[in-house]
Structures are given as structure tokens and as C-alpha cells.
């Protein structure tokens, strides 16, 4: 949560700088953004590769566990499709792309902004932060209503790190491995799914 606040502060600082034109034109950042985004993708990979739990987890996995992140993807696409039917200002692809951040707001919002512009980028940023907050707040309720996988599902990509503590507190530590696994699969899929949905 602390990181989310810091990130929001950076976003707000940028927002103010943009609104009041505080930066010289050279710093509008378009080219910088692209290269930093590439660096970020590489570093996300480094983080995954260097994590000792990842390998151990993958060795112990039985194939059925893939059904959890798969159901998160299917459910998210379905839910955002329902939304798209009611909102004429966004296309189905745009709604799917925003949903396919699965709570991974930093990467998804920047990717979406690069491909589809500022407006959808902001929606993605807000939407995916909201998904993390909903999970933090609703985990206990979700697990009581819908069972132990519900908070993991709601957390999406964040169930491997930021929402993991609240998830294990709501459903028990025996679900921690599944939670990390589902979050990891979704985290790795975000940079593929988002461009695929918007560009294919």
C-alpha cells in the first residue's frame, strides 16, 4: 500500500506539472518513456528469474492449478464485456485491455497509454489501482461468500505480492502458494495480453 501511495504521488506531481506546463517541451517524455518502459520489462523479468520461490513453486505445480489464473482471465473478460455493453464511449477491446491489467497498474497503464493514448491510460491506472484496493478491503468478505479462491481471483496479478498478506489472513497460509502462482502467471501475461488485445 505504501508503494501505491508513492506512485500516486508521482502521478499527481506529473499531472500538476503537465496541467501548468511546468516542464520544458523536451521533457514531455515521449521517447524517454518508451526506453524506460523497455528497461522496466527487462527488470520485471529479472525479478521473476531471481526469485528462488518461483522455481520451487513451478516444480511442485500440478497442471490443475493453471485453472485459477485461467478463470481470472475468463471472468475478467466476461465482466468487462458486460461493462462495454453499457458504455458506448469505450469499445470492447478497450474495456478488455483495461481489465487485462489484473491490478498490475504500473505496467498496464503505461503500456496502454503508449498504444491507445492518455485517456485510456488513465482509466487503466485508476481501474487497476481500484482492483487492488477492492481486494485489500473485501478479501475477508469475498472468502466468506465465495470460498478460498475468491480473494486470490479478485487480487489478479497482485495476489503474488501486494495483496498476498491480506489474502493469506483471510483464507489461511495453506493457500499462499496458489496465490503466488496465480499472481505470477497473470503478472507475466499482462505485457502480452494488453498489446495483443489492442493491436490484433
Amino acid at each position, binding site marked *: 500500500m505504501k508503494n501505491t501511495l508513492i*506512485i500516486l504521488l*508521482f*502521478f499527481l506531481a*506529473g*499531472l500538476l*506539472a*503537465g496541467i501548468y*506546463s511546468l516542464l520544458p517541451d523536451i*521533457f514531455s*517524455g515521449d521517447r*524517454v*518513456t518508451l526506453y*524506460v518502459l523497455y*528497461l*522496466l*520489462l*527487462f*527488470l*520485471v*523479468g*529479472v*525479478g*521473476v*528469474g*531471481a526469485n528462488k520461490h518461483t522455481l520451487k513453486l513451478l516444480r511442485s505445480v500440478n497442471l490443475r492449478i493453471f*485453472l*485459477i489464473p*485461467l478463470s*481470472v482471465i475468463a*471472468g475478467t*473478460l*466476461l*465482466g*468487462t464485456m*458486460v*461493462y462495454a455493453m453499457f*458504455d458506448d*464511449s469505450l469499445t470492447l477491446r478497450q*474495456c478488455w485491455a483495461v*481489465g487485462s491489467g489484473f491490478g498490475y497498474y504500473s505496467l498496464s*497503464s*503505461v503500456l496502454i*497509454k503508449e498504444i491507445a493514448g*492518455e*485517456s485510456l491510460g*488513465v*482509466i487503466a*491506472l*485508476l*481501474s487497476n489501482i481500484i*482492483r487492488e484496493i*477492492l481486494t485489500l478491503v473485501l478479501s475477508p468478505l*469475498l472468502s466468506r461468500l*465465495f470460498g478460498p*479462491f*475468491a480473494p*486470490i*481471483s*479478485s487480487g489478479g496479478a497482485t495476489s503474488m505480492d501486494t495483496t498476498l498478506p491480506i489474502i493469506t489472513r483471510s483464507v489461511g497460509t495453506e493457500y499462499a502458494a496458489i496465490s503466488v502462482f496465480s499472481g505470477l502467471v497473470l503478472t507475466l501475461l499482462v505485457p*502480452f495480453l494488453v498489446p495483443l488485445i489492442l493491436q490484433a
Partner: protein
Amino acid sequence: MAIVIVLLVAGIFTGYLLRDRKQLIRISSRLTDAAIFLLLFFLGVSVGMNEQVVSNFRYIGLQAFLLTVLATLGSVLMTGLFHRLFFRQK
């Protein structure tokens, strides 16, 4: 698309090879944070310079909220369905 795959895979291999170099991994994790902060700052800048987005911010916020509620609900219900179909002991 292709460059995304290349960068991620190259990162995973690099991370795997360097997994015991604690110092380097810590630097990489700091750099990740810095890259995210920088990107979100610039996202803010380009949003701030886009008057159309700024003047519609409330509406955009509402869109994001409703879309997310449906995305999360769909996801939770679908996972519940999968749980019932594939994980219940018979």
C-alpha cells in the same frame, strides 16, 4: 510484441543467472521502483497536458470504478464456478 517477449525472457534468464548475487538483485529491484516512479510521473505529465482528459476526469473515474467492479465480480464468480467444477472432491 516481439520486443516484449525478448525483454522479459532476457530478464528472466539474467535474473536466474544472477540469483545469488544479492547486491545486484537489490539494485535491480530499486531500479524497478525508480523506473515505475518515472513512468507514472510522465504518465501524469502527458495526462495533464491533455485538456480533454483533465476536463473529463470525474467521468473517467466513474468509468474506471464501474468497469473494475464488473471485472472483479466476473473474475470471482468464474473462479467460483471453476472451483465447483474442477476442485471439489466427489
